[in-house]
C-alpha cells in the first residue's frame, strides 16, 4: 500500500469555475476531498450599511448589484417589503409588469446557470446557445428600462416605465420562441451520455439535511419538497396564475438540472398568462407620498428569487431611511452546505457540485 499524505489545495478567489470571487480551501488526500472550507467576503460592499444612509428609492439601484443575474427580483424584494410596511396599493398594470419582468429574469438567470454549469462539466456549445437566448431577454429589458443588467426598474408603489408600444407582443413572441428552444436544449443536453455520467448520483443529500441547512429554491425542491413561495405564501398577483412547482426525486445534480429547466417552462407559462391578461391602460404608479416615510415597525418578507428565498427584513423608525435593512440572500444560505457535500468526493466533482448549488457571489457577500 502506498503511503498517502494530505495536502491543501487553494481554489480561487480567481478561478473560472467558482463563478465569482469565492475561495475554497480544500484538504485532499490523493484525489479525495477530506475537507473543504469556503472563504467568502471578497465582494463585500456593505450594502446593508450603506442602506442605512439612503432613502428607500436610493436603495433600489444598490439591490441591482446583489444578485446581478436577477436584479428584478432584488428590486422587488425591497419595494415589496417597503410597500407592505406602508400599506400601499399597487395598480394592476404595474403588478403585471412586475410579474412579467421577474419571470423573464428567472429564465435569464436559469439560462446563465445552465450555460455555465455545462461549461463546468465540460460542454462548450450549450453555453453559447444559452447566452444567445438570454440576450433576447436582455434586449427586452433594455427596451423596457434602459439597462441590460442593473435595471433599477421598480419603485415603491409601482414601476418606473410603462411597457413601450409593442413590447408586450414582443414578450409573447419570445415565449413562443423559448418554448421551441427548450426542445433543442433537451435534445442537446438532457440525453447526453457524458452529462449524465457526470451528474447522475452525484452530490445527493437528504430532505432533512436540506431543511437543516436552510436551503431554498431548486436546492430544496430537488429533495422533493415543493417549497415555492410563489405558491406557499403568494405575493404580488401570483395566485392568479396556474403553474406547477417542479420537484426532484433523487436529489442529485441531474435532478437539479431538470428541476431548473422545468422551472423555465413554468415561468414561460406564467408569462404567457400574464401577457394574455395584461390590462389595457391604467396607471403604473400607485398613490405614493412624495417623501417616503415608512411607518414605525418591523417586517420580513420572503420572495422566490431564481436561487431561492430572497428575504428582506426592514426595521423602520418612521423616517425616510431604514433603521436596519437586512437581506436574506439565498446563495449565502445555500453555500453553507458545500463542505458537507464535498467531504469524501472526488476532486473532479468539486466544480460540478459547486456549480449545482448555483451561487452568485454578489449576493453571498452582499
Amino acid at each position, binding site marked *: 500500500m502506498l503511503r498517502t499524505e494530505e495536502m491543501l489545495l487553494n481554489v480561487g478567489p480567481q478561478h473560472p469555475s467558482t463563478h465569482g470571487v469565492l475561495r475554497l480551501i480544500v484538504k485532499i488526500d490523493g484525489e479525495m476531498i477530506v475537507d473543504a472550507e469556503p472563504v*467568502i*467576503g471578497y465582494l*463585500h460592499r*456593505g450594502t*446593508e*450599511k450603506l442602506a*442605512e444612509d439612503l432613502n428607500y428609492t436610493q436603495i433600489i439601484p444598490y439591490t441591482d448589484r446583489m444578485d446581478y443575474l436577477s436584479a428584478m427580483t432584488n428590486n422587488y424584494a425591497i419595494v415589496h417589503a417597503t410597500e*407592505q*410596511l406602508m*400599506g400601499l396599493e399597487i395598480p394592476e398594470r404595474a403588478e403585471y409588469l412586475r410579474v412579467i419582468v421577474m419571470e423573464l429574469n428567472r429564465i435569464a438567470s436559469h439560462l446563465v446557470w445552465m450555460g455555465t454549469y455545462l461549461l463546468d462539466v465540460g460542454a462548450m456549445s450549450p453555453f453559447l446557445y444559452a447566452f444567445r437566448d438570454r440576450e433576447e431577454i436582455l434586449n427586452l429589458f433594455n427596451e423596457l428600462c434602459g439597462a441590460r443588467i442593473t435595471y433599477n426598474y421598480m419603485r415603491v408603489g409601482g414601476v418606473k416605465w410603462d411597457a413601450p408600444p409593442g413590447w408586450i407582443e414582443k414578450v409573447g413572441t419570445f415565449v413562443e420562441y423559448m418554448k421551441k428552444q427548450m426542445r433543442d436544449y433537451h435534445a442537446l443536453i438532457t440525453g447526453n451520455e457524458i452529462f449524465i455520467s457526470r451528474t447522475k448520483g452525484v452530490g445527493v443529500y437528504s430532505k432533512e439535511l436540506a*431543511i*437543516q*441547512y*436552510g436551503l431554498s429554491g431548486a436546492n430544496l425542491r430537488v429533495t422533493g*419538497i415543493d*417549497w415555492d413561495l410563489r405558491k406557499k*405564501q403568494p405575493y404580488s398577483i401570483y395566485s392568479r396564475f396556474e403553474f406547477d412547482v417542479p420537484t426532484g426525486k433523487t436529489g442529485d445534480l441531474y435532478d437539479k438540472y431538470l428541476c431548473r429547466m422545468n422551472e423555465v417552462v413554468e415561468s414561460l407559462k406564467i408569462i404567457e398568462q400574464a401577457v394574455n391578461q395584461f390590462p389595457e391602460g391604467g396607471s403604473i404608479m400607485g*398613490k405614493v*407620498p*412624495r*417623501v417616503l*416615510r415608512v*411607518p*414605525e*415597525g*418591523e*417586517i*420580513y*418578507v*420572503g420572495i422566490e428569487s431564481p436561487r431561492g*428565498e430572497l*428575504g428582506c*427584513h426592514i*426595521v423602520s*423608525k*418612521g*423616517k425616510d431611511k431604514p*433603521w*436596519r435593512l*437586512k437581506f*436574506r440572500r439565498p446563495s*449565502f*444560505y445555500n*453555500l*453553507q*452546505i458545500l463542505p458537507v457535500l464535498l467531504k469524501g468526493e472526488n476532486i473532479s466533482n468539486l466544480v460540478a457540485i459547486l456549480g449545482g448549488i448555483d451561487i452568485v457571489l454578489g449576493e453571498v*457577500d*452582499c
Partner: protein
Amino acid sequence: MSHEEQNEKELLKEEKELQPEPSADAKTEKKEGEENNPVKAEPGESDAPVTAKPGLPPKSSVPRAPRAAGAGKARPAAGARPRPAAKKAEKKPEEPSPLQPQLDRFLRLLKDRLGEGAVKEAYINRAGSHIPTLVVDKEHWLSLAQLLKEEESFQFDYLRLLSGVDYETHMEVVYQFYSFAHGHQIAVRVKTGRDEAKVPSVSHLWKAADWNEREAYDLLGIHFENHPNLRRILMPDDWVGHPLRKDYEPLDKEV
C-alpha cells in the same frame, strides 16, 4: 393620507421657491433631534407599557410632528406598536388577527413547559403578514429554542431568517422559523445588552444558523456563546470594529 397632502404642499412650495425641501427636511430633522434628547437621557428601561401609548396612533390624522416624536423615542418605544398596551388598544378598533388563536396556543404550551416569565412578550406583527412574534431575554433563549425545534406540536425545523439589529439601547437577534410539518411560522426576538452583547448559539439546532451567527458577530459584534467557529466571515480577519453598530466610525469618511 395626511402625508400626501403635506407632500403636495411641499411640492407646491417647491415650485415657487424651488428650494424648499432641504429646509423642510432640516426642520423635521431638528424636531426629531430635540425629541430625541430627553428620551435618550432616560435609560433603556422605558419598556413600561405606558410609554408605548404616545407612539401608538400612527393612523390618526395628526401629521408628522407627533409621529416623529414617537419615532424619536429611544428604541424600546420603537417596538411601541406591539407592546401589550398597544395590542389591547389595537384590538378594539381592529378585528383580532386570524393568527391570534395560534399565538395563544403557542403561549399556553410554552407556559406549560418553560414556566411563567420565559417569554417576555408576545404579539402579532400586523405589518409583517400577521406573524406571531415572541420577545425573550437571552437567558431563556436556549431552552426556548430547544423547545421550538423539538416539541411535537412546534417542530420549527426551518430557519428562514437570522438578523441582528442594533437599537442603540440594546441589541436584538431576530429569528424567523417555519415548520414543514405543521406549516406554521413564528418570529423570535432575542434581546441582549449592548456592551456585552451575548446570545447563546443555536447552530447545533439549526445548521443554517452557523454562518448567519458569524455574520451577525462580524457586522454587529454579537457574541454567540458556544458557537463552534465564531470568526469574521465577510470582513477581513484583522478588521477593527463592527460596521453595522450605530456607533461605528468608518476609517475613511469619504468611502
